[in-house]
């Protein structure tokens, strides 16, 4: 799924979406058709821990880490990336099914590793 679409050159103004009752991703429009979400990993959580996406709209997850190597793994969306310190990893895909999909760090990183997870919510 990743890298299946070309990256637009120009960025539109960033738009932060806030959903009441949960921590929600900051979603930027890179163009009219791309949802860009910045996700920051650090022991032992992801920020945001809930990523809300619109079905059918291409996504670029921009993944960075504040401390050590982590993994971003959403098996039911067939998404996986290794997040290396000092680098930005990208997961580009277009969600085609509405629903809630769990993701987690899949590189064991210490005592709180089991709780380093979150969810992607894809809405119609």
């Amino acid at each position, binding site marked *: 799924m990743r890298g299946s679409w070309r990256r637009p050159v120009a960025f539109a103004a960033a738009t932060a979406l806030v959903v009441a009752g949960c921590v929600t991703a900051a979603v930027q429009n890179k163009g009219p058709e791309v949802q860009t979400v910045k996700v920051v990993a650090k022991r032992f959580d992801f920020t945001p821990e809930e990523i809300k996406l619109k079905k059918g709209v291409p996504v670029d997850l921009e993944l960075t880490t504040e401390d050590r190597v982590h993994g971003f793994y959403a098996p*039911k969306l067939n998404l996986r990336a290794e997040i290396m310190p000092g680098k930005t990893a990208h997961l580009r895909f277009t969600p085609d099914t509405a629903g809630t*999909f769990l993701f*987690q760090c*899949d590189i*064991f990183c210490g*005592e709180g*590793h089991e709780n380093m*997870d979150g969810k992607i919510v894809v809405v119609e």
Partner: protein
Amino acid sequence: MTKGIDRRQFARLAGLGGVAFASGLFAHTKAGRVWAAGAGAAGDFYFVQMSDTHWGFSGDKVNPEAKNTLRKAVAEVNALAPAPDFIIFTGDLTHTTDDGNERRRRMTEFKSIIADLKVKTIRFMPGEHDASLDAGAAFKELFGETHYTFDHKGVHFIALDNVSDPGASLGAAQLDWLKADLAKLDKKQPIVVFAHRPLFDLAADWDWATKDGKLAIDMLMPFEHVTVFYGHIHQEHHDMTGHIAHHAAMSLIFPQPAPHSVEKKAPVAWDPAHPFRGLGWRSVEADGKKASVTFAEHALKA
């Protein structure tokens, strides 16, 4: 043949605290479990599986008796008569720590506690808490190799390491090693596999899987009599991939919820009304000639 135990004796062992399955395990079906007393196979030998002791863990909300739980299990296993042929610990002997010296201290303390086991043939495997932060270095110093094989009374045992890689893979080198080992075996050879994590995708989004576990299962599939015993998920669980049975053992520190039974995975809280509930160990009776196994789940006594 050492101390074989007959059906009646094994039923008594099962009665020590648990549920017993005479699963015809080497040709197991989900619906095929029966009580031990109704099973036909008198075993050639039996062993004990202990798992996920997490020595060094502290957290009163899930186990205020963390310092006593392993010792209780040791005492219960010591009460078995006849004694098992061997005991295997299927990983997470210790709770993880960033400090390598502390990790070695916990492993040393663990060893001193289980030194009280009367059975002296004890085999160890790492879990991710033991091995994932240092690629198994401390474990190897204190316990030896992280993957190995051995044979016992007609059964071929294979201990796989799916934790020294922090990304939860067996890796190409170990898979090649497994392939070479299996190449020497007859397809009718009874095989018992030990692993820490499940080899199949039980709940990959809960970290209850092995990335390349399917490759190992595919290698094992041509063999008629294969059973996998594992830990990691802190609960009894039984599943099948084709004709291969997979049995997870209870933990000896805290239970986890059933796969995907709650929105967010977290240890089950300690219930003062039912202390030690969900904790326990397993005895496995095997017969290499009959290619059969009976096993019993032993809940830790309050």
